[in-house]
């Protein structure tokens, strides 16, 4: 009896939950390093994307490719937008679409048979995104600043706080997307691509919001991620003339903070709902 109680205590409580989360995050990181080609390829991919976008932008400048390294404002605009983009993109795939991958490989149902926390399982996927995408962001920022121009680097503490809140909100989007993937199954891949491209267009990570037509800018203002991009890059660029573009910085930080706090809760609630529905219908392992 005493032994049973002790075992139950070991399996429950915050310490057990944290231990399970740490083990799951470690498992995700171990899997990541077991695929060295993927590891190196994703690094190479970021470098090529950066070069392609840089060369494309330079075609519009006087002097073209010879003009590389000249514009500091363009560098800040593109580099800081790219950081948010890469985090969102990786979150959609590693948190959201990974659920689908487990379904395809037939391991999702087995995960649900274990007594471990399902939320910890979802949250552990964030570890890979934080470690790997964080590293990629730093490297791409360095490369881009070499190619496009010296990176403006102001208000680092506030910029880091805005980025942290933006990432928290982005992870919430990842949880919500995982819920959507459970519902739409194979169409989740299309949905991930769709969200990525909607973000690229409406949240303007690679160009200023002033480049968008007026009617599209109205739509941009309805998306909290737009404020994350605008607030983060404006702060890091030291608020040059015309920035932030969507609202005064105080308002933008308020929106980003609300997004960072509420979106993970909303995302997890949606995931839980969809998970319960899938379990009731017996469709956890369907694909």
């Amino acid at each position, binding site marked *: 009896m005493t032994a049973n109680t002790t075992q139950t205590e070991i399996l429950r409580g915050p310490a057990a939950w944290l231990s399970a989360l740490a083990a799951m995050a470690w498992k995700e990181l171990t899997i990541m390093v077991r695929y060295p080609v993927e590891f190196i*390829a994703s690094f190479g991919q970021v470098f090529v*994307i950066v070069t392609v976008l840089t060369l494309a932008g330079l075609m519009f400048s006087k002097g073209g490719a010879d003009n590389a390294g000249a514009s500091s404002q363009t560098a800040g605009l593109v580099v800081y937008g790219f950081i948010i983009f890469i985090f969102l993109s990786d979150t959609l795939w590693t948190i959201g679409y990974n659920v689908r991958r487990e379904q395809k490989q037939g391991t999702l149902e087995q995960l649900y048979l274990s007594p471990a926390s399902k939320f910890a399982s979802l949250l552990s996927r964030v570890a890979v995104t934080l470690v790997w995408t964080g590293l990629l962001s730093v490297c791409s920022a360095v490369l881009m600043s070499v190619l496009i121009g010296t990176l403006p680097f102001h208000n680092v503490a506030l910029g880091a706080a805005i980025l942290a809140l933006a990432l928290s909100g982005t992870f919430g989007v990842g949880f919500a997307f995982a819920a959507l993937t459970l519902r739409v199954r194979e169409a989740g891949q299309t949905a991930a691509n769709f969200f990525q491209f909607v973000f690229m267009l409406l949240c303007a990570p690679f160009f200023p919001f002033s*480049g968008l037509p007026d009617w599209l800018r109205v739509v941009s203002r309805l998306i909290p991620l737009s404020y994350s991009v605008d607030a983060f890059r404006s702060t890091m660029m030291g608020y040059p003339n015309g920035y932030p573009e969507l609202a005064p910085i105080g308002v933008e930080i308020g929106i980003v903070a609300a997004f960072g706090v509420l979106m993970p809760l909303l995302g997890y609630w949606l995931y839980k709902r969809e998970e319960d529905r899938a379990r009731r219908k017996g469709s956890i392992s369907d694909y």
Partner: protein
Amino acid sequence: MAATYSPPTLGQSLSSALAEARLRFVNISRYPGQLVLEIIIPIVFAAMPMLLGRATAGAQAGANFEANTGTANYVAFLLIGSNVFTIVSNAFWHMAYWLRFEQETGTLESIYLTPTSSVTLALGLSIYSAVRALITASVSYIAGCLVFRVNPFQGDVLLACAFIAVGLIPVYAVALLFGALVLKVKESNALIGLMQWVVSFLMGIFFPVAVLPPVVRWVALAFPPTWMTNGARSALLGVGFFFDKWYWDMGVLWAFLLFTPLFSFWVFNRVENGVKRNEGMGQF
């Protein structure tokens, strides 16, 4: 009485290839959203540098672009690049992901137990992929031009189509080569992700390859999509063929068309046999 095995005839192989293509068409007809997205993505993709260029260069955007590329029509230039990229990228995704998907779901080994050769199935997959990519890329180019208020039918449209059509065969041959790499390395997603961006870089998706450093430019010129893209751009926008006259550039694409498939089949068969001998077909 022992059953004897005779290899499938050409007609039977063609029938298998068409059946494979039909299977894929039936499958994609269940996901119409993917097709819609394939039309939208190249437009959004081309819009990125367009919006950045317009916002940073202002009224000088067209003039600067002309000085760097040979045409002020940056909308069509970028749309041609992004759509040819979609065609090439689709070829790589469909070929490599087909093999990887079968591996992941555990059906690749079963496919190898049927009397149909994998190259026949790859041919069926290529027919499906090429038809799908050509339709979506054409619609996307026309829609993109209309959205950005540019005439999509300027220049020599037929010649541009000829460059794309001739370039398709070497592109799928290179994709088969890539499929062999996926069979060997087994990490398709990362490889395709990297490969599609390397392809976009080498073919000059948003810039002329003349801006690349000399060594990289030579590598780019050894790659069929570079000739496809420049051929289509030159035919429609007059940016200039690599060899000044269109028929020389077309001749190079034909040389690729004759050489690349033979080389790819040879490599694919070698890798396939190696994987089969080492019992790695069903592993992932």
